[in-house]
């Protein structure tokens, strides 16, 4: 891997006439260049017809390289741009903006995916991946060479948002949207709002009760005339497109509510992991999950009594249902983030109630990041004992205790005392259970939500587009996207609200002008395309004394379904024209030697 610097290498030469295309090939740190010889790709494409500038860069998305591209566009008068880096899902918008800022038509830029669809898919074959990258970049150059300068379509947007889920995230998103003047419809499947937080007691760090927080939020929501809150209700249908969706909500058995909304925010939260019988003694009396333990603590005061028996000793087993790597049998690979802090917090509440209770925390790693560290410190200072175990040898919970002793026994090998095996008697064993996705098949189907391998909803980019999904106008926030504590959920809810408002407050959205067009010279008005368009975007218009088909740009959704039905090959989808596809096919096939 040569030339790791931010300063990109230049080659190729300016051409006196014809296309003037800039080609930028990204190392992506090493994500691409560890598996693809990007310098060889540069050598192979720099003299392609129409290429005026060709460079490699460590990160094409970096400010410095974007700046350099913009300078090249102006300096060399480029009329086309090809960036070979990651999936267009990530940076298509970034580079379109670079082109726009520098005065190049953004639709004469092509994104070539040499990461997800090349380097990462062929980590075992450097020569094969390099060869493929060359072909892909040539395909992109061919596409840009036959591209047209286009201007975006402008559509009116509906100033109303549908929020699915009325937990803290959904309620806070609704408030945020209402506060900037957008109407909101909130749909909650349960009869009550507030989700998990509504059932929580004293919360870290301010000691306010979850129920009180939710009640306060609900008061504010009710005070907003622009918010309609529907409980016991579910989204059942969605049609239309970004900026103007038509949604159908079923409330109870008989009521149907219809609304037009510009965007949808999904805040459906999480489920807690429910260990099957036998996992860490689950099923034995006295073995409880984290939410069960929390409710038990919430329900009483003074010394702890569980099922009529005084509690003298508690064992917590961490990472139940989380971080189940290969050594732990596989399953949920992620860390659930909130459980270390929650368990430590509850152990401090136990110490408030009865400082004499012995508390043992069996953990793999403690992840009390940020201010949560104070919980961990307090817990240790108040006598909690932390015992580390290895995931390949988890604690064993049994009822095998002697007469007169607490009824449970936990055997654990303590990694930090040279692997000594300990037997701990316990009145209660708390399984510190993590977060799992909620079953939401119906919603996933209706909204076409992208679901990751872990069953959680996927954003487009964790850093750059953290609340947007691949479905335009459908945003996600809170724990349905990944484990979050309540403050993190609310932060992401406000991010989703801001993102939704950013688009809808303008009152219009710019859509890709990648719509179908009819060449009137070729069209002989055979009539086959009219019924092929379910959006009724094709109309009959007069043209030089006869009638031909014509596409209404604002109505066309750009699917291209009319293209193959035209026997005269008179219809092209802009961005995917017949000429472009054939040129790409040729570019992809050109020998790479």
């Amino acid at each position, binding site marked *: 891997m040569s030339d790791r610097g931010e300063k990109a290498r230049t080659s190729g030469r300016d051409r006196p006439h014809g296309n003037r295309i800039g080609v930028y090939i990204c190392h992506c740190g090493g994500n691409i260049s560890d598996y693809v010889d990007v310098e060889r790709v540069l050598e192979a494409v720099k003299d392609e017809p129409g290429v005026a500038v060709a460079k490699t860069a460590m990160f094409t998305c970096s400010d410095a390289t974007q700046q350099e591209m913009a300078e090249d566009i102006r300096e060399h008068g480029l009329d086309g741009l090809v960036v070979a880096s990651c999936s267009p899902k990530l940076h298509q918008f970034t580079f379109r903006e670079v082109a726009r800022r520098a005065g190049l038509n953004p639709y004469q830029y092509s994104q070539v995916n040499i990461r*997800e669809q*090349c380097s990462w898919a062929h980590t075992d074959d450097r020569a094969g991946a390099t*060869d*493929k990258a060359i072909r892909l970049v040539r395909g992109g150059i061919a596409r840009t060479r036959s591209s047209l300068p286009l201007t975006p379509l402008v559509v009116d947007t509906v100033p109303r948002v549908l929020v699915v889920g009325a937990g803290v995230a959904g309620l806070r998103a609704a408030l945020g949207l209402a506060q900037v003047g957008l109407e909101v419809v909130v749909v909650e499947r349960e009869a009550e709002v507030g989700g998990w937080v509504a059932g929580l007691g004293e919360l870290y760090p301010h000691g306010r009760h979850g129920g009180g927080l939710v009640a306060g939020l609900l008061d504010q929501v009710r005070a907003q005339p622009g918010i309609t809150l529907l409980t016991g209700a579910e989204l059942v249908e969605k049609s239309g497109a970004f900026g103007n969706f038509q949604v159908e909500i079923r409330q109870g058995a008989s009521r149907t509510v219809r609304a037009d909304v510009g965007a949808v925010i999904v805040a459906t939260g999480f489920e807690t992991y429910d260990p099957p019988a036998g996992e860490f003694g689950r099923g034995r009396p006295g073995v409880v999950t984290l939410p069960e333990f929390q409710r038990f603590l919430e329900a009483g005061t003074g010394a702890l009594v569980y099922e009529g028996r005084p509690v003298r000793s508690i064992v917590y087993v961490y990472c139940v249902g989380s971080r189940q790597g290969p050594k732990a049998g596989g399953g949920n690979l992620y860390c659930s983030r909130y459980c270390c802090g929650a368990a430590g917090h509850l152990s401090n509440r136990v110490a408030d109630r009865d400082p004499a209770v012995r508390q043992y925390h069996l953990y793999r790693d403690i992840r009390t990041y940020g201010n949560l560290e104070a919980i961990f410190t307090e817990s240790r200072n108040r006598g909690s004992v932390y015992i580390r175990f290895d995931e390949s040898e988890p604690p064993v919970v049994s009822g095998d205790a002697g007469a007169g002793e607490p009824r449970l026994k936990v055997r654990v090998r303590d990694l930090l005392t040279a692997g000594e095996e300990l037997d701990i008697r316990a009145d209660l064993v708390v399984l510190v259970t993590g977060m799992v996705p909620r079953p939401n098949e119906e919603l996933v189907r209706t909204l076409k939500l992208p679901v990751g391998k872990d069953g959680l909803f996927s954003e487009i980019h964790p850093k750059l587009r953290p609340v947007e999904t691949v479905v335009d106008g459908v945003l996600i926030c809170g724990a349905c996207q990944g484990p979050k504590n309540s403050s993190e959920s609310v932060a992401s809810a406000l991010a989703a609200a801001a993102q939704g408002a950013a688009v809808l407050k303008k009152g219009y959205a710019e859509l890709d002008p990648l719509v179908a067009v009819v060449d009137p010279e070729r069209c002989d008005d055979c009539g086959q395309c009219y019924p092929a368009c*379910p959006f009724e975007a094709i109309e009959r218009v007069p043209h030089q004394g006869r009638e031909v088909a014509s596409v209404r740009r604002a109505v066309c959704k750009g699917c*291209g379904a009319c293209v193959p039905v035209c026997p005269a090959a008179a219809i092209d989808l802009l961005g995917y024209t017949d000429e472009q596809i054939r040129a790409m096919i040729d570019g992809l*096939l050109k020998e790479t030697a």
Partner: protein
Amino acid sequence: MPDRPDGGGGPEEPRILVFSTNNISDPGIDLAGSSHLHYPPGVVVIGLPCTSGVRPEWVLYAIQRGFDGVFIAADGEECGYLSDCTERSARIFKRAQDLLTEHGLEPRRLKMAAICSVCAEPFVDHIREFSAALAELGPVTAAPVEPGSGGSAPTGLAQVRKGYE
């Protein structure tokens, strides 16, 4: 591993053109890469908005120009545009196979399967299977056609350009 005649390092593998769709199957194919699931590097992808927009003539052209096979990674029931995308895609598939047959090419060189946005493993399985089937079928025997043959004349697009401006 024997060297490829074109200088690439892998074994001689069938070249497969995939028509994916930007919102459904392309994310699924991306996910295969993100998950580092390997498939033959002779597979390249052209993304379109919707499977119902694939012109059968493109399938023919791809094979006439040198691809060993075309795989349509279809939207299936997931299509965000058309509720009858599956039926339309099936008609396109049939027309494309007929076109291949008319031109003396094996219709088996075209394959189609619905690939959803998280269908990383199914995609890789289909592609490996198709690649093996194409290897067994051997190379295309017909001589390749000239670039651009059978395509819309560029004049059509010039008209469009004029109309657009």
